[in-house]
Each structure stands twice: as structure tokens, then as C-alpha cells.
């Protein structure tokens, strides 16, 4: 009777608080007891890696997003692959290859004794089955959002739908089975860049049995024009030859792989269970790593580098595989005059910009492709920072200083090669105006306005950049300069002829020399000012070893050991 309600309540709340604290504390002990296997003996380790999003679907032919590709990389392999950490093309499911003289017929000898995860034998028939599958895509599979990389590398299809947006012509002609372990790929025109492109995750070989049984190509297009696979190949039965096998995918929660016990190749690591968990927020990924809830994550933000290194975690850097540049549109005066382009480049202190805004993870670019790639030239004209020289160049060309130019930057965007475009821009404008230019500034939101304006030649000078897809110079300077583009506003036959010749050259040494020459030509002509290559960061807990960051993010976890 005696106790008032408020007293009782106070007691009850105190009791609840104590109970809650006890529960949490006990829970903590539990967690340590069964926590993740991070401290387990090296054999049979489990590793949780945080991704930035869930994959779209686990079928390499139908995706272009990085998180789908990362997952597919663990389970599937292509005819060729890239040396760990580099862009050198090395044998994958093919042991070696030869091309005919004009580079239109490529013969691959295949690895013996390889089986898919479902027990299907890997052989020449399986290779042709996959290539023919891609080439014969119809309907919404021809949508560039689905088969982007096929269209980039091979162009069109057996029967290209004119409304699909896909190119009409195809580089791919046919696939021939010579014998069980020899396959010939015939191309319609000579190409050498296609070999490096074959290392793309998109061209990895899937089990023909599984593709058929789980109806990889069955689906329907809904009223919104979006394709839905009705089969389960890409969601429940992605079957390749790779070091890991699919175990389970709970959408938006986790994707689990287990070690392939019958893997034909090397598996130096000790990860038996690999779990990808999507954590879209950057700060949340960092905290999960600090808490030990995950053992690694990608896309570390530059501002977190210091925290990671100071809290006993590891920071790894991918070799640079991108370029940020200022594009000059030569149709937009005065950029048609090479003196202006040269003076602009000499007036900007690129080293200062890189030091100020790239947290020590950038290097000054001297040309439009990163030094990791073959064909990079150490003999290009470099246009070092020299404001006095810039003035001289302009005056010699008959200009009265300052020379008026238009210069634009994008807003609402952060790119690996350009985390803070406005900072870069403002620093450059200050330097240009200090020297010898009067800059009319302009800006627009990255998409769609800015890209649209830049691509359609509506800007004079503009900030832009590019991240490579595959380890071939064609993917950088070929993309930029092989064909006339409104963004650059010039047609230079000397450069495009050089790039044409380099693209089809099949001899590696000759090809390297040709691309070096093209880079020299390009930088003499100076269509833009490349200014930085950056090295994106990955973070891991201290007990993870063996992860080799790749410039193109081709990173198998079979190399990883959790100690």
C-alpha cells in the first residue's frame, strides 16, 4: 500500500537499467566466443569483407557494376587473366595463345583437368557455348545497361536490334572447336586490345550445364522495360571454375562463398568461408572495421587514411588506373591555338594541386594514361610549371595579356580521380589568373548537365577524368582520341592513324612502341592537360595478409590469409 507510484517506477527503472547492462555485458562475452573466426588457427579461416552495395546479379555477361564484378571474380575465370596487382595479361583457363598474322584469328590452348563447380567438364565446347551465348543475345539483353562490356569490346550481336542502342557491327565472328582443348576465336577485323579485354570479368566462362539447367537466358520484360530473369542461374546457381563456390545470398544482407575443394589452380590463402556484406555508408564501413565486425573494405575515403593507419589497421593502395584532366575544346577559341594550350598547362602548378587535394595518394600525370600500363612513354613533352615561360609563349604568339578563356567544373560529384572538383578548379583558376589568363568560370551539376555540355563541346576548358576498364592503352587514349569527338573539337589524322595501327598490332613489343609513340604525339599536340592519377585505398585488419590490390580491381580472395 505504502509506496507511491513514482517510487515504484523509480525502482523499476533502476532494475531495468541494471538488467539491460548485464544482458549487454553477457552478450559481449558470447560474441567473443563465437566471433567470426578472426583469431582462429590459420586453417579454415572465415573472412567478412564489406562492399558498398549488393551485387545486381551474379552473371558476368549482364552486369557492369563493380560490386557484381567483385563477387563474380571469386567464382568465375576467363581464358586469360591479369598478373596479380598489374595489367600484364597472363594465362587463365587458357595455357597459351597465338594469333594469325593479321590478328583476326586467335587460337587458345586450354587447361586440362578443369571442372566447373557442378562437375561439368571445362573444354573447348564450354568456351564456344559461352561466346555464342553472348553473341546471340536478343531483346533486352542488347540493352547497354545489360551487356555494356560486350558492346564496348565486341560491338553488336548476331542480330542487332536497331532500337537497342548497340553498335551494328560486331568484332566477334565465330568460335571454333579444334579439339577438346583447343579453341579458335575468329574476329571480323584485326584487334589486339581484345586480348586484354578478355581478362574482363564479363568474359568469364560459366558452366553450360548450369546456364541451361537454371535458365540463364530466360526472362521477361516488364511494363517499365526492365528485364527480369526468371531463371535462377544469376541468383542461386552461379557456377564457374573459380577458387570459391556460391553458398548463399540473402539480398541486402550477405553473400557467402565457400572454398572450392577441387580447385585446379593455386590457392595459397586459407579463407574457407568468404562473406560479402553490403555497407553503403563510408563511416559505417570504417567503424565496422574498427569494431572487428568485418576484416576489410573497399573505397576508403582519403580523409580516413590517417585514422586507419593510426588505429592499427592496414591501408592498401590500388596502383593508379585513372586520369583526371583539363580538356581543351579546340572549336572553342582560343583553344584552337596550340600556344594557348601550352601556356595554360605551363601556368598551372599541377604538383601543388595534387599535394593539396589528394591526401598523398595522387601522382602528377604527364599523359592521358597511368604509368602502370604498357605504352606509357617517359619521353613525352611535360610542360613543367613555368608561369614566365607561359607568358612568353603567349606573347610570342601575338596575344595581349591576359588572354580570356572559358573554364568549367562539375558540382555535386566526387570521383576517385577528382574527390573535390571545385577545390582543384579554384586552385587552377587562381594560378591561371596569376600568370596570364582572364578566366570566365562556369559550372553545372555533374549529371546530366555538365557531362552533356562537355561531351557536346559546349565548354572551352573543362575538368574531367576517366577510370580504366581493362589493362590496355586502347581503353585510355584509344577511347579519347582514336575518333573525332565533339568534346575535343579536333581531327588529327597523325594521332588517329597511330592509334589505329597500335590497336591492331599483334606483336607485343611493336605494340608497346607504337603506343609510346602515340603518347608522344598526343602530348606534343596537347589536346588537354592531364594532371593526376590517384591510387584508391582499401583497408584491412592487421591479421589479413596476401591481398594484392589490382589496378582494375581484379582481386581474388584465394590469395588471402587470415592469421
Amino acid at each position: 500500500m505504502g509506496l507511491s507510484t513514482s517510487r515504484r517506477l523509480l525502482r523499476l527503472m533502476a532494475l531495468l537499467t541494471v538488467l539491460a547492462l548485464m544482458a549487454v555485458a553477457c552478450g559481449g562475452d558470447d560474441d567473443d566466443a563465437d566471433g567470426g573466426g578472426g583469431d582462429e588457427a590459420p586453417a579454415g579461416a572465415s573472412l567478412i569483407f564489406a562492399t558498398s552495395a549488393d551485387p545486381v546479379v551474379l552473371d558476368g555477361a549482364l552486369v557492369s557494376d563493380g560490386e557484381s564484378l567483385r563477387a563474380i571474380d571469386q567464382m568465375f575465370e576467363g581464358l586469360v587473366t591479369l598478373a596479380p596487382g598489374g595489367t600484364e595479361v597472363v594465362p587463365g583457363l587458357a595455357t597459351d595463345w597465338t594469333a594469325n598474322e593479321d590478328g583476326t584469328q586467335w587460337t587458345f590452348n586450354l587447361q586440362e583437368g578443369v571442372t566447373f563447380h557442378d562437375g561439368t567438364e571445362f573444354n573447348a565446347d564450354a568456351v564456344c557455348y559461352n561466346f555464342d551465348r553472348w553473341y546471340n543475345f536478343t531483346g533486352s539483353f542488347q540493352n547497354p545497361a545489360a551487356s555494356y562490356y560486350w558492346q564496348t569490346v565486341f560491338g553488336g550481336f548476331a542480330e542487332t536490334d536497331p532500337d537497342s542502342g548497340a553498335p551494328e557491327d560486331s568484332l566477334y565472328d565465330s568460335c571454333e572447336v579444334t579439339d577438346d582443348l583447343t579453341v579458335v576465336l575468329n574476329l571480323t577485323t584485326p584487334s589486339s586490345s581484345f586480348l586484354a579485354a578478355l581478362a574482363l570479368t564479363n568474359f568469364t566462362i560459366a558452366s553450360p550445364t548450369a546456364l541451361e539447367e537454371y535458365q540463364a537466358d530466360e526472362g521477361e520484360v516488364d511494363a517499365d522495360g526492365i528485364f527480369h530473369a526468371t531463371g535462377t542461374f544469376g541468383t542461386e546457381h552461379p557456377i564457374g571454375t573459380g577458387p570459391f563456390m556460391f553458398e548463399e545470398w540473402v539480398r541486402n544482407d550477405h553473400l557467402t562463398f565457400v572454398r572450392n575443394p577441387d580447385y585446379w589452380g593455386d590457392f595459397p590463402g586459407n579463407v574457407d568461408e568468404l562473406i560479402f556484406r553490403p555497407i553503403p555508408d563510408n563511416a559505417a564501413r570504417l567503424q565496422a572495421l574498427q569494431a572487428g565486425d568485418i576484416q576489410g573494405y573497399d573505397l576508403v575515403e582519403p580523409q580516413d587514411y590517417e585514422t586507419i593507419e593510426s588505429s592499427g589497421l592496414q591501408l592498401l593502395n590500388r596502383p593508379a588506373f585513372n586520369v583526371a584532366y583539363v580538356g581543351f575544346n579546340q572549336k572553342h577559341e582560343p583553344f584552337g591555338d596550340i600556344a594557348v594550350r601550352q601556356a595554360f598547362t605551363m601556368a598551372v602548378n599541377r604538383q601543388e594541386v595534387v599535394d593539396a587535394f589528394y591526401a598523398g595518394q595522387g601522382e602528377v600525370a604527364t599523359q592521358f594514361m597511368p604509368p602502370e600500363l604498357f605504352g606509357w612513354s617517359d619521353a613525352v613533352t611535360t610542360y613543367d610549371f613555368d608561369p614566365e615561360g607561359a607568358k612568353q609563349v603567349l606573347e610570342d604568339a601575338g596575344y595581349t595579356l591576359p588572354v580570356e578563356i572559358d573554364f568549367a567544373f562539375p558540382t555535386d560529384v566526387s570521383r576517385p580521380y577528382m574527390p573535390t572538383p571545385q577545390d582543384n578548379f579554384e586552385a587552377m583558376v587562381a594560378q591561371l589568373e596569376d600568370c596570364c589568363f582572364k578566366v570566365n568560370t562556369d559550372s553545372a551539376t555533374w549529371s546530366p548537365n555538365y557531362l552533356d555540355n562537355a561531351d557536346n563541346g559546349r565548354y572551352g576548358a573543362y575538368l574531367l577524368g576517366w577510370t580504366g576498364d581493362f589493362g590496355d592503352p586502347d581503353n585510355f587514349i584509344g577511347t579519347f582520341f582514336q575518333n573525332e569527338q565533339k568534346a575535343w573539337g579536333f581531327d588529327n589524322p597523325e594521332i588517329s592513324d597511330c592509334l589505329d595501327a597500335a590497336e591492331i598490332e599483334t606483336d607485343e613489343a611493336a605494340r608497346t612502341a607504337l603506343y609510346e609513340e602515340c603518347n608522344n604525339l598526343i602530348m606534343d599536340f596537347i589536346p588537354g592537360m592531364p594532371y593526376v592519377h590517384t591510387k584508391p585505398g582499401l583497408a584491412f585488419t592487421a591479421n589479413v595478409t596476401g591481398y594484392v590490390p589490382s589496378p582494375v580491381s581484379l582481386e581474388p580472395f584465394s590469395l588471402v590469409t587470415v592469421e
Partner: protein
Amino acid sequence: MIKYIVRRLVLLVPILFGLSLLVFVYVRSLPGGPEIALLGERATEQSSEAIRKDLGLDQPLPVQYGRYLKNLASGNFGSSIITRQPVMDELKQRFPATVELGITAILIALILGIPLGFLAAKRYQGFLDHASLGASLIGISFPIFFLALILKWIFAVKLGWLPSFGRIDATIDLPHPTNFYLLDAIIDTNWKAFVDVLKHLILPAIALATIPLAIIARITRAAVLEVTNEDYVRTARAKGLDPSVVDRRHVMKNAMLPVVTVIGLQTGLILTGAVLTETVFAWPGVGSWMLNAIRNADYAVLQGGILFFALITIFSSLLVDISYAFLNPRIRYQ
């Protein structure tokens, strides 16, 4: 009463119609488009065109809206352009996650907020009153995401007591017939999973509960103070009733009316709060889903999600109105 409910439900039709138009126009006014999200900086004019055509975005807006309404009428919310999943499927999977989190947060807010407000009123101008007022002021003004980061830093990073993200440990095997993980664990009689899910719930639910908790505590305090001074309470005390009975029957029941209103209004707050909380805790619910959809100009998801949010808010306010009648028999709906 039934007539009232039916009338409210009928009113829903024009409200939803207007809302669908607003949402439709709004998502299309966002910068960028799905083709940019899909192809990024590699988009050529030709491929962007093809995608816009495929998605029907090359049609005039009224035609697109008409098609959207037609689909809605047949219960088809469209598909996400990014995940290629039907919006309804994703909603079915993500909604339980948000509800589980939201209900836990509301429970925390009620279990702590009402007693706190009551105690503060009882000790009017005392230490507890000042303390709870101060704490609730902090609760209301503290940004959720910041609180969430601090909670995680203390309890996950420093102490290691609680997990920092997600709904369940990925190594725990639990079937998900309902997608309410607590319920799934009970159905599966998997107590290890139940405890793990509970542990995953604690930090995000506390972060999400702070603002509603603070508001509920303050409203309860004010309501109790007001009711305590009513004549009937004085009479009850004067006739010698046990103080706890007076508090329960006369004070609390009458003070609950404004509190219930506020609880109803909190539903909207919980949903908007979930956008931030879910993002910080990588909680795969509706909130983080919407945020991603905004980033990717995922029209169908945004349209479906916002309509759904609106429906929930409307229904919860309807529930509040109905519950009035039970709490206060004098209120009857004509």
C-alpha cells in the same frame, strides 16, 4: 464509428491520387536520370537514348504518368532499375526490417519516456524534473546520425559489446519466412539467433528512439501536471484513495490522451529517422533503400517508397483518431 472509418478510407483515394502525382513530378525533377546511374560517365548519347527509350522515359510526361497509374491500379509498383527487382518484392523484404526497428524504438521511447515524464511531473521542480527536461532537450536537438556514430564508437568499437551494423551475424543460419528476424528466430526456436538479432537491434533502436523518447517524456510531464490539478483528482485524493490508485486510474488514464496523439505523430518521425539510422547501421530497411534510390534516380523505388511512407503515416493517424474513442468515451465521431 464504422461510418467515420469508411469515410476516412474513402478520403484516402483523392489524397493518394494527388500524392502520386506530386511524387511522380518530384522524382523526375531530381537532377540526373536513371541512365546516368546505370552507365555513369561512360554513357554515350546513343546508349543513354536506348535506355531512356527502354524505360519509357522518352514518352511525354502525361503518357508516363498514365502508364504509372494504370500499373498502380493493378498493384504493380514497377521495378528498381538498379537491382532489377520488383519494388513490391523489395518492399516485402525491407519493410519488416524497418518495422522491427521502428517498433523496438517506439517501445524504448514509451517504456522510458512515459515513466520519465510521469516522474518529472511528480517531482515538479525537483532534481529529476530538471534533469529529465535537460536530457530531453538534448535528445531532441542531437542529430540522430551523430548520436548513432557515438553509440557505435562506444559500444561496438571501444567496448566491443554490440555489433556495429546489420541485422544478424552472417554466420548464423536462420530461415526468414516472415523477414521479422525476431519472429523468425522464435519460429525456428533458434535462441542463439534471437539473442544475436536482439543485440543487433539495441544500438540502432536507441538512436532512433531518442527524439520520440524526449518528446513523449515532455508531453507526458505536461499532461500529468495538468491533470494532477484537476478537481476530480483532488476529490479522489480527498476521499482517501490509495495514491497509486489515483495515479493509475485518474491521472495516467486522462493524461494519456495527448500522449497517444504524439505517439501517432511519431510514426512519421520514426520513418524519416530510419533513413539516417538505417544508413549509419547498414540496416537493410526501407530508409536506406530510399536514400540509395535518391542517389541512383531509381524512379520506381522512390515512387513506390514515398507512397508507402505516406500510406503508413495516414493509417497511423487514423489509428490514433480511433483510439481516442476508447480512451475518452466523450469523443464520438459523427
